[in-house]
């Protein structure tokens, strides 16, 4: 249930996520080393366009990537197709995007 367009979208989002995941892990390790409190983290992320862009991009890529992946799983295992399958794909995308955006907003809004 993947045509060329969805396939490209999934590969491109994977390419985007890979360095972001590595960056995220690296920052976590470096930041937490000396012990870090929630206040300290928020003081750095709140109002930071850089972190909003970093995690915003990740949320968008992850939402697209996961929606397409789950679309295939649901098609192959639950036999969902046609309009129902499209609606499912969009619902997963929008739900993840909504939750992710909320989280990004919570830590980066000034």
């Amino acid at each position: 249930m993947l045509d060329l367009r969805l396939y490209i979208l999934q590969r491109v989002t994977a390419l985007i996520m890979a360095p972001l995941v590595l960056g995220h892990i690296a920052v976590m390790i470096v930041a937490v080393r000396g012990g870090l409190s929630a206040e300290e983290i928020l003081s750095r992320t709140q109002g930071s366009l850089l972190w909003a862009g970093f995690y915003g991009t990740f949320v968008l890529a992850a939402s697209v990537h996961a929606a397409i992946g789950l679309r295939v799983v649901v098609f192959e295992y639950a036999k969902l197709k046609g309009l129902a399958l499209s609606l499912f794909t969009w619902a997963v995308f929008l739900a993840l995007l909504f939750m992710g955006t909320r989280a990004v907003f919570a830590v980066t809004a000034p």
Partner: protein
Amino acid sequence: MPTDSSFLDVDVWRSGAESFQNFQVPARDSQTVLDVVTWIQQHADPTLSYRFACRVGMCGSCAMMVNGKPRWTCRTHVKKVAKRGRIEIAPLRNLQVIKDLATDMSDFFDKWVAAEGVFHPTKTREDEIEAIRPDTPERISADAAVECINCGVCYAACDVVAANPAYLGPAALNRAWSLVNDLRDGALAERLEAVSHDGGCHNCHSHQSCAAYCPNSLNPTASIAGLKRETVKAAFRRGR
């Protein structure tokens, strides 16, 4: 139930009864699964239907499920597959059964056509024969994919075919890839388009069952990866 070691305990799928039927078949030193089926048909039940032609691994017509795995039965030795003298033989997976062990391969071959597995010549018989150097990358890729005997073993091994009946399957896509690499062919764009739909190459999960079971050791997974690459490249070229 195994009786003694001079007999094989063979369960064969019968489409009429929709169940397996047991036969006790004399064991021989050198014996293929096709020999076993033939013995049953000639000595135990002449109504058993199955398909074969060459008996030497050339024609690709004898494939069946043997103990749950797809095999070319004429080149599969009983010794290799029997489990304590037991063999279960069923029609090839992912295909309609005509009767007993004979499947209808129409879907399988229709998909070869749907995947543009057809050669589109760019020259006529009046033209000079085009020389293809054996050491070009295209020729090497085509060579790796070309020895397919259309047996359907890979098609039966593929879980994506089982889950998505529209999926073109490893053999048809492998054929499309050998033609993508055929420098004499003139339908590259049409072929890349034909393998890019809902049932196209992008549905392959690369889990390599096809390559693991192909009796000719072809690697359809690699061919499909090639198609994915070329279709994406072509899409970006179109986008420019």
